[in-house]
């Protein structure tokens, strides 16, 4: 089953895919662009992975001062950075390199504490698509990636659909693809994750209890390019969803 959370007509609804848009839980059928899409589940802790695809590590190797080690590179995000499908993400006027990252987002459904990899998938509720923007101009080498790069308002896009784990037989066999204004700029495959989902859940749950709604953003493959104001960025994962985001400028924020 696929579900979304949308705002329509003054209330927040659970919505389902429909031939011409979405069907609200109350029976109404509405065009996709007539609703406001929210992140598709009640989001708890946002756990993000850096450098989790071998090809992306190679892509960034020139600027890495320390090579990717065995321990996963993990960082957290706060709630203010979240955004839904068809949302607008601000690109500050003073930057030269802001890029998307298409990532498989793994949603925890059952509390996980010291879970072994072999048992880990039983703790997964489902999946969605994430576009985890970064602004490289703001990178500093202190607790990197620093929050000014990765925890900006509206820079972590989730959706459109939450897809039940039961409907995704193998989450490590999915194609990821990003296009900017219709041109494909990034392609990858979840089989190329350095640390797969069971390994990540085992690693994380050893020191932190994972709870329902916590989400693991599993990293991005290579092919990240700069985006400009006005660009439409579509991050898509086979069988999970097609997540649309538009880059906007400072002006509408009064900056």
């Amino acid at each position, binding site marked *: 089953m696929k579900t979304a959370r949308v705002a329509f007509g003054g209330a927040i609804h659970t919505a389902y895919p429909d031939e011409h848009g979405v069907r609200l839980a109350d029976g109404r059928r509405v065009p996709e662009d007539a609703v406001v899409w929210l992140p598709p589940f009640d989001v*708890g*802790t946002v*756990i993000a992975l850096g450098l989790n695809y071998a090809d992306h590590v190679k892509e960034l190797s020139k600027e890495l*001062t*320390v090579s990717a080690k065995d*321990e996963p*590179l*993990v*960082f*957290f*995000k*706060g*709630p*203010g*950075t979240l955004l839904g499908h068809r949302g607008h993400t601000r690109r500050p006027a003073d930057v030269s390199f802001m890029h998307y990252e298409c990532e498989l987002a793994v949603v925890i459904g059952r509390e996980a504490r010291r879970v072994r990899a072999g048992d880990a998938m039983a703790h997964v509720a489902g999946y969605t698509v994430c576009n985890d923007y970064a602004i490289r101009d*703001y990178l*500093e*080498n*202190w*607790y*990197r*990636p*620093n*929050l*000014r790069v990765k*925890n*900006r*308002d509206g820079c972590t896009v989730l959706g459109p659909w939450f897809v039940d784990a039961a409907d995704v037989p193998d989450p490590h066999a999915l194609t990821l693809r990003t296009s900017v204004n219709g041109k494909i700029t990034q392609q990858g495959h979840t089989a190329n994750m350095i640390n797969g989902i069971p390994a990540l859940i085992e690693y994380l749950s*050893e*020191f*932190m*209890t*994972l*709870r329902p709604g916590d989400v693991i953003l599993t990293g991005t493959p290579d092919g990240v390019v700069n985006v400009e104001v006005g660009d439409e960025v579509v991050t898509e994962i086979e069988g999970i969803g097609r997540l649309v985001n538009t880059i906007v400028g400072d002006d509408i924020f009064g*900056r």
Partner: protein
Amino acid sequence: MTAPEFSFEVAPYRLSGAVYGALLNDPLQLAALGDALYGAPYKAPPAHPVLSVKPRNTLAEEGAAVVVPQGVDGLEMGASLGIVIGRAACRVAQQSALDVVAGYVIVNDISVPQSGPARHYRPGVRHRARDGFCPIGSQLIAAGMVRNPDSLAVRVYLDGMLVHESSTARRTRSVARLIADVSEFMTLQPGDLLLLGAAHDAPLARAGQAVLIEIEGLGRLAHRLVAGPVHA
């Protein structure tokens, strides 16, 4: 693993659960790094606030038993002033930043000590975000009751003995400046907690010890440390 709810069920008197902590906000912490500030992997001193996120699994109440993992001698007691946000804060000017503060609490930003020249390079979540690693005091002191949040004595006691004394005065970014710099790129919401950050040379505490943190005018936060289970 729950944040204190104080006495009302509405933000900011019920914390949102979002906790952001300043790191390396004591100039002595950077000074202690010496030339390493300019070497690999840092290459330059931080130009903007150095921040971490304390996720919800780290939140602990007054009196909590915080687990010292097996094989770890002691934990760093990052006694910090906790700034409770009272109003949505986006691009707040330093001059008016204290207007968005609802009040203050005592927080212990606990971490497993890390060594080596690159210890400040990565977020180090395994060292900083373990279950219970963010005990929060149960008393919120309204902003109006605190005359100057940038001049408060901070004391750490272990088993009743004073082991560390510092002041919120010695900070690269004051309370107002920190709010201004953080809200430039991320909006803070009512009930969010922003930590001013611990002082240089945070004391280590061992399993079995009783921890008490006192901040002038804010009361006390007490909790204890217990030994972790042996892994199978």
